[in-house]
């Protein structure tokens, strides 16, 4: 981490919040959210009325509990809610009756195998009442008459939840959710909100973060359903990753609960970080789900959310009992969890796919193999035609040639030097399968127009962004406009890994194909088993380490390139004589190289200039060659 962050108060917050009797609605939730709001004043507390329909659920009545006890015939309170709020079944309806022991037993809950634990029981949706006691105490109950009193109220009110949005440079969000709905329990309740609160404080302290951060504090299940019902479209559009934070307070184990398919970026990051720092972690699948990932990763929602836990709900003996207390949760456990979540978020910030705003990215050995792999992944082959601009590096054409498809070159736009849209339209035939626009020298091609054409003709668009890392159209980065984007990390590129490449895509199937074909088409589940022809286009970890470090500095690098361009522009631009790189409205050119066109110059004069510059020790190059001028290269 660039800025190590610690939060020594998490344990104290948990202690303060412990006695509050929370349920999915009611004053316990409000009090808890109020406490957290004092720690992060920008937290917004919201409410939704009882009875409101959220998807196919209904917001339940609000539950208030004032008192609850069982007294024996002598009037002694043998069980008292004021001693431990787990004693009363959550959402119990009011009752005031006298019962014999047999009748009472019908309403008691205990755990024979854990005789000293008070279980935690709820009954939100079927009206009932009950008490939870230790098995030890239950065994001592005598035949007697018992007065049972539950002074509760179930009435139309509200369900409360809270969120905090910390705006970043991009609308793309990292989503962090935790729940606040269990009474006095440590690991499976308070560890989540206190670690989330610490993370929120960390995110607030960031100076101009790249991503927007959304923190959500909700009652479990119904809360995430409510939240999704109100924000689903926004979340589906903008959330690039995140975590459901629960059970993060003890020191005994580590776990990862993946999303439904277990392959989104948060799953990958969680798995990578745990493998690196806690290799004995337990990997659970979505089948082991039990918290809000049920909603966030449900079919049709599919937010890229994963969950890193310590001892996971349902997997440790104190779970959902009074024993889940401060013997389980420790400041050290909380600190370690915070640290791991910060490491994960750090990777989001440094990840190339998220940088480009795409769901997936696959490294390759270089930009040429990235293009070839992308074309093969889309099934481009003999008989197909692929349209490329006439002005680009030969790799764009060669990659098409490798597949056996026919290369169709079209002219460029005289200003942007990128593929000319009208020429593309003229070149489409019934055999055209794909277009490869090249973001030449760092200026994005006209992707919006190209996508329109591609849509109308059912064509694949692969952006050749080898020279344009970080270039944008309307604040959206290249690499995410087409069906795939390819990048180069060659030594002279915006970012380098020596040699290196990357394919970005939002298409999960293509992502899987890319990874598979890159590694000799080896079956992911069966080593040395090959159903088709693949390649060795792998990037080494050695290269990737360099790339990760370079990506951290990309803003700095792009700022510097812009500055260099501006220096040239100030000194050289002359409407009559010298034209420099173009920048269309709404487009962000990254000025990979600065190019000048001198009016009235012919090739002889140009070459004289190049030689003169060379004599002064300054390197310059002619533009790339037009394919039309290279015999035999096209066809």
């Amino acid at each position, binding site marked *: 981490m660039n800025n190590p962050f610690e939060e020594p108060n998490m344990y104290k917050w948990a202690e303060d919040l412990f006695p509050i009797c929370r349920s999915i609605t009611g004053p316990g939730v409000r009090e808890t959210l109020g406490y957290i709001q004092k720690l992060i004043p920008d937290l917004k507390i919201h409410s939704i009325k009882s009875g409101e329909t959220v998807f196919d659920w209904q917001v339940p009545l609000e539950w208030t509990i004032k008192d609850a006890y069982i007294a024996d015939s002598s009037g002694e309170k043998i069980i008292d809610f004021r001693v431990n709020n787990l004693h009363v079944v959550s959402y119990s309806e009011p009752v005031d009756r006298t019962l014999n022991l047999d009748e009472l037993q019908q309403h008691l809950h205990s755990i024979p195998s854990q005789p000293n634990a008070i279980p935690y029981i709820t009954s939100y949706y079927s009206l009932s009442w009950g008490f939870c006691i230790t098995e030890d105490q239950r065994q001592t109950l005598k035949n007697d008459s018992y007065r049972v009193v539950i002074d509760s109220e179930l009435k139309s009110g509200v369900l409360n939840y809270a969120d905090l949005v910390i705006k970043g440079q991009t609308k793309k969000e990292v989503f962090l959710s935790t729940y606040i709905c269990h009474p006095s329990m440590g690991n499976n309740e308070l560890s989540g909100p206190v670690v989330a609160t610490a993370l929120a404080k960390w995110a607030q302290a960031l100076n101009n973060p790249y991503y927007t951060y959304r923190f959500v504090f909700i009652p479990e299940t119904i809360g995430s359903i409510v939240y999704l019902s109100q924000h689903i479209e926004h979340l589906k559009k903008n959330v690039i990753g995140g975590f459901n934070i629960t059970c993060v307070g003890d020191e005994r184990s580590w776990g990862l609960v993946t999303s439904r398919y277990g392959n989104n970026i948060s799953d990958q990051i969680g798995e990578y970080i745990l493998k690196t720092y806690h290799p004995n972690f337990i990997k659970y699948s979505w089948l082991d789900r039990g918290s809000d990932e049920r909603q966030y990763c449900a079919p049709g929602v599919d937010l890229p959310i994963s969950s890193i836990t310590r001892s996971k709900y349902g997997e440790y003996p104190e779970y959902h009992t009074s024993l889940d207390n401060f013997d389980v949760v420790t400041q050290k456990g909380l600190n370690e969890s915070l640290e791991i979540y910060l490491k994960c978020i750090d990777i989001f910030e440094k990840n190339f796919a998220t940088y480009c705003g795409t769901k997936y990215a696959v490294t390759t*050995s270089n930009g040429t193999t990235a293009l070839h792999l992308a074309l093969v992944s889309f099934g481009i082959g003999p008989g197909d035609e692929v349209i490329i601009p006439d002005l680009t590096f030969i790799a764009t054409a060669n990659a098409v040639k490798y597949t056996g498809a026919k290369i169709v070159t079209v002219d460029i736009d005289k200003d942007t030097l990128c593929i000319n849209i009208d020429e593309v339209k003229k070149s489409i035939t019934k055999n055209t399968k794909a277009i490869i626009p090249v973001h030449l020298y760092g200026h994005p091609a006209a992707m919006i127009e190209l996508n329109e054409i591609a849509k109308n003709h059912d064509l694949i668009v692969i952006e050749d962004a080898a020279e344009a890392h970080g270039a944008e159209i309307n604040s959206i980065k290249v690499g995410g406009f087409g069906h795939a984007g390819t990048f180069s990390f060659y030594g002279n590129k915006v970012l380098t890994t*020596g040699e290196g490449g990357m394919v970005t895509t939002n298409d999960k199937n293509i992502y899987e194909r890319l990874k598979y074909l890159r590694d000799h088409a080896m079956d992911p589940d069966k080593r040395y088993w090959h159903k088709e022809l693949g390649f060795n286009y792998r990037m080494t970890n050695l290269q990737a380490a360099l790339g990760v470090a370079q990506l951290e500095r990309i803003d700095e690098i792009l700022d510097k390139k812009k500055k260099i361009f501006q220096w040239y522009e100030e000194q050289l631009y002359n409407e009559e004589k010298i034209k420099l790189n173009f920048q269309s409205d709404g487009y962000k050119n990254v000025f990979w190289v600065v190019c000048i066109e001198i009016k009235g110059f012919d090739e002889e004069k140009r070459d004289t200039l190049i030689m003169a510059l060379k004599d002064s020790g300054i390197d310059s190059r002619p533009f790339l060659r037009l394919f039309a001028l290279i015999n035999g290269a096209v066809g």
Partner: protein
Amino acid sequence: MKIKYGKQDVTAEDIAAVVDVLKSDLLTQGPVVPEFEKVVCEFTGAKNAIAVNSATSALHVACMALDLGPGDCLWTCPNTFVATSNCAVYCGASVDFVDMDPNSYNISIEQLKNKLVIAEKNNSLPKILAPVHLSGQSCEMQEIKNLSEQYGFKIIEDASHAIGGTYQELPVGNCKYSDITVFSFHPVKIITTGEGGMALTNNAVLANKMRQHRSHGVTSNPEEMSERPDNEIWNYQQVCLGYNYRMTDIAASLGLSQIKRLTEIVRKRNEIADKYNQELAALPLQTPWQHPDTVSSYHLYIIRLDLDSIQKTQPQIHDELIDLGILVNLHYIPVYRQPFYEQMGFKAGYCPESESYHRDALSIPMYPTLTIEEQDRVIATLKKVII
């Protein structure tokens, strides 16, 4: 702790060499790749070396340099990684397989002879033969070379496992009996560059073609370019369809540093093999036989299980060893049994020796940093599982 079947050995000196390149002006296409190539030439005695980003790429540029294309056929041994045959498919050529020798696990000279006689009659001789030096032991190259002269095919030695080994007391890679030799520098191999490979040849024309194919089919040598107007700059020309298979200077610096220890590494691997040979001798398995003409670099130590006396299946033994932390592996499934090759019409039973090998072979841990204690544990565990 788990013991892997192989792993790299990277020293502080190796890391320092890599860092030096990262601090230099050129990360790729700089001076270190040619230097690495030169050192490998010196080590092997080959005249030319072309470093590339993987052995798969090396095999591919080798096939392209030998003009392998549609209508041609490459023969290899089925007991290899798929890359040996895939490189021919990349070129549009077909592939055929010659069964292995039951002793050396390399290509059987007898089978090769028989197949060549038939192929000559059917007019289906191969354009290229790619013998594979499995586990680091050279094939019988002199015999293969004699056959190539008789039948007119070219030879690519797939020595991915075998840098540091010798044949007739000369280093593998010297190309005395072949047109091209290919090395791999994947981390599991004898020395590593991360990913990496190399093609060696004594033929300057082939070397030049491979250099072009390694870098987009581009040349900067004016003599190789077609004529262009004098008043235009042609600082490079694409003269054929090439790929980007370049090795970086970063990767080459690692290889250059590692190769200094190559002799020592191969010696260490042979020591480990000697200990296995002795201590496994009495077990119901076959230790690797060595041809008297060869010294193996021992990339792999392959045992063949006597399943009849062990009374367990090979997968059972494999799984039990893995459960006990000995991460054994199997090299290889006969290539033609891969679904991709079965689609071409190859059927089970085609190369019976290779299939029988596939049913009873295992690669057990072999790498230079394997300690005596670890090796003792491997041997003890193996005994426990198979006796």
